[in-house]
């Protein structure tokens, strides 16, 4: 049986992890490679690296990091942040990334999804969607939720699926950072209207939240950052908890 995935997300700036990293037993908790190994060993099903640096040298640093991570870990990982062309994708995949995640660039140039899917296959194209619920409507936002777009979440999800996205990473801006649980109603609706896997993001605070997003939110995977980085939730304990709730997980 296909299992539900648990995905820690690491924010990267200039080749270092930036926030919320607090592993006492690591020599260098700012080293993304050390953290990636730690997560792979403790049962993470995949990893996501989100590059948030803004300097000129960022590309070279990121590529070097991707190579080191790919050499060190034996589970799949996705790289996102600042990918705007097929050439950007090419260099990341050639250096060992398994999937890439695009967000703003897909909204600005939807054809990018088609181009990447045609060249490398849908399986490596994750479209990240940040949306905020305003007066009942889920509106897609850019730049970390600062800039609203014309797109409704569900219309945009259908659009990216048709264009060849292999997976959707949906972050609810309303839930992100609250630790009050994922946006399960919107997630369940997403799973109804598209037929590609959905990763839930934004709002993880307790183990129950993960169980709820898999059962009520029908999510295929759940992504979180701080609850894992601060060891508020340990992945082996989380998986045991989910298993006890009859949710299929890889133990």
């Amino acid at each position, binding site marked *: *049986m*296909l*299992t539900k995935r648990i995905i820690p997300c690491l924010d990267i700036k200039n080749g270092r992890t930036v926030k919320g990293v607090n592993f006492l037993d690591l020599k260098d908790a700012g080293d993304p490679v050390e953290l990636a190994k730690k997560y792979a060993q403790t049962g993470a099903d995949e990893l996501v690296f989100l590059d948030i640096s803004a300097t000129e040298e960022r590309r070279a640093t990121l590529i070097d990091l991707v190579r080191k991570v790919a050499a060190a870990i*034996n*589970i799949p990982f996705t790289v996102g942040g600042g990918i705007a062309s097929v050439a950007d994708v090419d260099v990341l*995949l050639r250096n*060992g990334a398994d999937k890439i995640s695009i967000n703003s660039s897909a909204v600005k140039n939807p054809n990018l999804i088609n181009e990447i899917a045609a060249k490398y*296959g849908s*399986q490596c194209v994750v479209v990240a969607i940040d949306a905020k619920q305003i007066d009942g409507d889920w509106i897609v936002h850019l730049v970390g939720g600062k800039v609203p777009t014309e797109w409704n979440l569900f219309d945009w999800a259908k659009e990216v699926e048709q264009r060849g996205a292999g997976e959707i990473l949906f972050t609810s801006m309303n839930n992100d950072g609250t630790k009050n649980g994922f946006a399960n109603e919107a997630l369940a609706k997403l799973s109804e209207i598209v037929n590609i896997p959905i990763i839930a993001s934004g709002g993880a605070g307790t183990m129950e939240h993960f169980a709820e997003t898999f059962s009520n939110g029908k999510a295929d995977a759940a992504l979180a950052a701080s609850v894992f980085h601060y060891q508020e939730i340990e992945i082996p304990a989380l998986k045991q908890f989910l298993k006890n709730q009859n949710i299929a997980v890889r133990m």
Partner: protein
Amino acid sequence: MKKNVNTVSQTPPLGAGGLAIIDYGAGNVQSVLFALERLGFEGNVTNDWNAIKAADKVIFPGVGEASSAMKMLEDSGLDVLIPTLKQPVLGICLGMQLMCQHSEEGNTNGLGIFDVNVVKFSNEVKVPQMGWNTIYNLKSALFDGIKENEFMYLVHSYYAPLSENTIATTNYELAYSTALQRDNFFGVQFHPEKSGIFGEQILKNFLNL
């Protein structure tokens, strides 16, 4: 650069021909190379006929779309070479699918090594299947040391139905072939290079065949 300290102590049982990884422009070869490196092996990424023919083991990777990958194979003449190989050959993911008779993806004629036609999952399930699923009914030395129902990482929209070549089964919508074998030819739908320590064990088993 970090040196691979395992290379000497874990000398691969490969002869002078070494390990060839077929390079035809499709596929994430780097992930396979890194996995081999972690196991202390080196691979020669090549599209050279002589190097491939002379290799002790051959890995045939592949991700992407079937018809364009097949086209690339044909352009380099590798579609003729691969079915004639005598040493152990391991197709991974799309590589395995291309070793079958035909794929519904792009209505593509394959290499015809495995007598089975690759078809698409229905909309009853999410497509692609993406994530960790179990493999069972393991029937090959490829799975030495792997217990029934071990987890492997899979990403695919098309599948090979069960056939007499099936050496491992996975359930998604239905029971299908997650690994195939005929004579010296092996194919796995899952990604051993991304399936944790048990995936690495399968790669190691192949290299030790």
